[in-house]
């Protein structure tokens, strides 16, 4: 894939220089039958950048980040992750999935495996580490998300916040270059939201590249380098948190913010 294709994209993104970009999304469309869930999405994410995606329900936020690791296949346009183009080639897809971690709204932990095995399964079965090495790594990550003592339990025995931190550790165990979060706190009781957000903040401080779909505006304001507002499958407005929250330019952005704030 030549760089020419992306020249336009870098202009449109309003983000950083394309040499710096770890994710390049260029003219991407996604259709479910006739329905267009994504319409001409252009966007770049720089290394170590934290991008928060906001927007009303059904606006295509999940679809967008699920296209980045090919949980959904886009119909038109190009997606590049760390220099690898997402095509139908399964090797490319696997390559990109190894480099991107994902945290889901409802955790999606493997209920039949212990917490430790949940975290160790990626390094062991994808990266081919030995059992002991993968478990050692898993233990380190569980310590990092502050639940090493839960290692031998099963997911169902943990609180929602703990489960989501296990899910975070599981994704991090693959030492990804990019982390994708799809409403990671939406399924949590209010008192557990902060423990997950704190873990995410720490991750951002450590320099992880992150794309976060969330309704936590406080988190967006504090952690995001850029905020992307989506509506009806389109990117409506992109800017720094203060640009978006304090000075929205687009009518739709204003309307959305007035509804949720």
């Amino acid at each position, binding site marked *: 894939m030549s760089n020419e294709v992306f020249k336009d994209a870098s202009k449109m993104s309003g983000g950083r220089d394309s040499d710096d970009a770890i994710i390049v999304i260029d003219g991407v469309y996604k259709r479910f039958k006739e329905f267009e869930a994504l319409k001409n999405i252009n966007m770049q994410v720089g290394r170590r950048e934290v991008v928060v995606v906001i927007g009303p329900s059904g606006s295509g936020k999940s679809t967008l980040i699920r296209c980045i690791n090919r949980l959904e296949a886009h119909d038109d346009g190009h997606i590049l992750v760390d220099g690898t183009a997402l095509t139908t080639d399964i090797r490319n897809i696997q390559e990109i*999935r190894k480099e991107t*971690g*994902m945290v*889901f709204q409802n955790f*999606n932990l*493997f209920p039949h495996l212990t917490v430790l095995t949940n975290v160790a399964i990626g390094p062991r079965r994808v990266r081919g580490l030995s*059992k002991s090495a993968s478990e050692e790594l898993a233990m380190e990550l569980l310590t990092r998300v502050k639940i090493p003592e839960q290692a031998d339990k099963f*997911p*169902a025995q943990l609180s929602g916040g703990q489960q989501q931190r296990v*899910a975070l550790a599981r994704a991090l165990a693959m030492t990804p270059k990019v982390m994708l979060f799809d409403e990671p706190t939406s399924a949590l009781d209010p008192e557990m939201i902060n423990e997950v957000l704190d873990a995410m903040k720490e991750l951002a401080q450590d320099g992880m590249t992150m794309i976060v779909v969330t309704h936590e505006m406080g988190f967006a304001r504090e952690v995001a380098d850029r905020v992307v507002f989506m509506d009806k499958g389109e990117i409506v407005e992109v800017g720094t948190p203060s640009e978006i929250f304090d000075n929205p330019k687009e009518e739709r952005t204003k309307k959305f913010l007035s509804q949720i704030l």
Partner: protein
Amino acid sequence: MITWIRRNLFRSITDSILTVVSASILGFVVLQVFQFVFITGRWEIIQVNLKILLVGRFPEDMMFLVGFSILATCFSIASLASGVSRTVETTPRLAGRLWELFQRFGLIIATSAFLIVLAGDLDAILFGAYVLLAILGGRLFGRARRNASLRKLPGWLWVTINATLPLVLIFLTMGQAALEEWGGFLINFYLAVVSIALSFPLGVLLALGRRSTLPLLRWLCTAYIELLRGAPLFVLLLLAGVALEFFIPASIAPDAIFRAVTVFTLFTAAYLAEVIRGGLQSIPKGQAEAGKALGLSTFKITFLITLPQALRNVIPAQIGQFISLFKDTTLAGVALSVFDLLNVGTAITKQDDYLGQGLIYESLAFVGLLFWVGSYVMSRESQRIEKKLGVGIR
């Protein structure tokens, strides 16, 4: 107690009538059964023919192989049962634990004791003790995998060891005697064990094939499953009796036992496939997605994530299929003229000593008892494993 009776049994006139009627029916049945078992029943027909009922005329000098194959089966089942389950929730009180053990093993021990008393010789007692040892050994082997000592042994290898051990011994034993010589319960037992062990992997593959993205494979598996589920088992068995000759020259045609095993395996696999497919469908899409997001291959997602959960979710239905199979082995006796337990059971009533004395009740009662005990134990164990694996909790 009295208030409980009043509240639950005699709350209204209709209740009272129903209670009295059902109590009298129950009392009558119990009395009749009691009378039959302990007073009028002539059980010497069972006692005299015990060996024939259990193993037919199996050559005496090869009996040790039969013994080994049974021990190996007990070992493997115990090992698999305790190896797949985890975190034993021990009841703290001794009485509770004893009650648990009684529930699990009471019926087996009672039946074994009954058979030993009937057989009335030292060998039978010894064999009972060996069976117990085999079960204990199996549990140790199963637990060793879960705990430290056998952690390094890969899961698939452990399962393969457990599955092949009894099969090898059973095949070895079957080769030792001509079909005319052996029979009785041993046939039903072997048919069931071998068909279960073979139909399970086949059922898994069929279920996966039916969900495959390759159209031809999916179509073939679907056709196979629907074809076999649509055919009556008895007809299939009759067909196997005659039809194989069309394809294979008579001189090397397999004997009736192998035909029966083939039919039972193919038939049960079709039903199992549907059960397992149902289990696979019950796994949320997010599970496979989480696997994909980690970069796991489709193969690994299936065998590490979705299939284990699916199999766990449908344990009762799977065991249900195995119970049907176990009982249906009597059909082989009729369809393929194999001397299985049921056939032997009816044949002994026609012996000179017993002809025309109506001892078919005693005989059928014994046949029924063995099948009932086997089925009941399987069903109980399935409930236990289900509970241990926390189905419905996790």
